């Protein structure tokens, strides 16, 4: 399973922050939020569109 690239260039800075997280840890903890549009990845609260 690989990390899908963020399609939108304006999120480059955010992507850099995510890439700084160790790859092994990245997939350790994914929590489905109560809201359909949000997901929590290793403590980061993200929009679903951030990781699609």
């Amino acid at each position: 399973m690989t990390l899908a690239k963020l399609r939108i260039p304006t999120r480059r800075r955010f992507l850099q922050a995510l890439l700084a997280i160790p790859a092994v840890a990245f997939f350790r903890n994914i929590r489905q939020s109560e809201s359909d549009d949000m997901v929590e990845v290793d403590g980061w609260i993200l929009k679903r569109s951030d990781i699609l």
Partner: protein
Amino acid sequence: MIFQDAAAYAASGFHPKVCIIGAGPAGITVARKLVAAGIPSVLLEAGSNEWTEESQEAYKGVTIGDPYFDLDATRLRYLGGSSNHWAGWCRVLDSYDFEPKDYIRNSGWPIRRGDIEPYFNEVRDILDLTAFRPDIPVTESFNWFEVIKSDPVRFGEKFATELEVSKSIAVVLNTEVSELKGDGRSVTGAKLWSRGAPAGVIDARYFVVATGGLENSRLLLWSNERSNGGVVPNAASLGRYWMEHPMYWTGDALITNQDAFEIDRDGDVFFLPSPEVLARRGLPNFHVELETLPFKGAVKAFIAGMSCAAAPETAEWVSKKLGQRLQCTSRVRMAWEQAPHEHNRVVLSATERDAAGVPRIELHWKKDELDRRVMLEGMRLFGEEFARKELGRVHISDWVRDGSDYPDGMELAGNHHMGGTRMSNDPRLGVVDRNCQVHGMSNLFVGGSSVFSTSGQCTPTTTIVSLALRLGDHLGRTISGS
């Protein structure tokens, strides 16, 4: 008038109508308000006009439960009280902080914010504040709000000259009240301890206890024990329902739209949840603070700007190796309201006493599951709305998510001592009534944050001064009317 001890005061022949115990923000404010009503008062201060180790020693005590500040470090015992180390941050409790909530047991005050609003102009004069700015909605459930970071007023310094020349206020330094005497209907005198020895008994028509959010409980507990219930006849809640504002760094944030809200001169920005979302989630009040400049200094800022954009984790690792502290994200800090619990309480030590023979404090204080829940749910709520509005992204620290122990080395709490003599219409659930009068006692009142029924999320000083003005006003009218 300022007297250096009880002997000097006794020789003056001054006859006060009101005896105010404690010359901190609350005590000084009540005394000044009584002057306006033409009512003379004596203002007893256990300490000197400056810090001394001897005076501070009386504040030693222990905390049982969660780690807390040393009790002789979290408060100050000299003229001006704890205003002498106050940071100056100001905000008044919000309207809904006064209202009962069916999801927080024992919440609700017998007064409303409207009962202290008439005093806000005076509060601003006393604390040298600008006008409070309105909150601004930023997301669906969070408002930006201003914390006025004022130049902190040291009450003993600001009002020194006024107290010195006043003919209506007699400040007596180096003089503590070791015990109030009472007969279950009224206080009949205050036993004094001055310069290391008993100093007689002072009499007045009315007494105001304003020794701070820990010491008020201590004095009343001891006085009540010594008088066999004669000072606080309804003592079920005396010392109980004690609250702090826990404060911890709970995560990080990347802000991608800094134009959406105002960041203050220190690089901080504060957000407050709506009462509706708090009710929906069953949460006490809290605030989220983003510290956008967790590092200080032009050089660090430049390095951070260069390196954080490229590889944030590397930049932080390198800086740590160099012995510097560099953080590439904004740091998230939360402070929150604790639910009022009976078991969080001020108790008298069974074994330890100070030089005046008064038992020292044992503070029983423990955070619980609600404290953990407000952190985690608060962060999730805020983070989701922050992302949804494209303001940035929030990261919740591991220890908040996995329920690990509260970390060492963080701020821990606000040095805000609230409750212990809380307000309630029910004498079983409170020590004082809506006028800060001790239930069942005709002439005993309490000033300061110990009367807080609940704590809200904001710093208490502004509300303390508001309540003290209201108390002084009430006393003035009561005494003048009689």
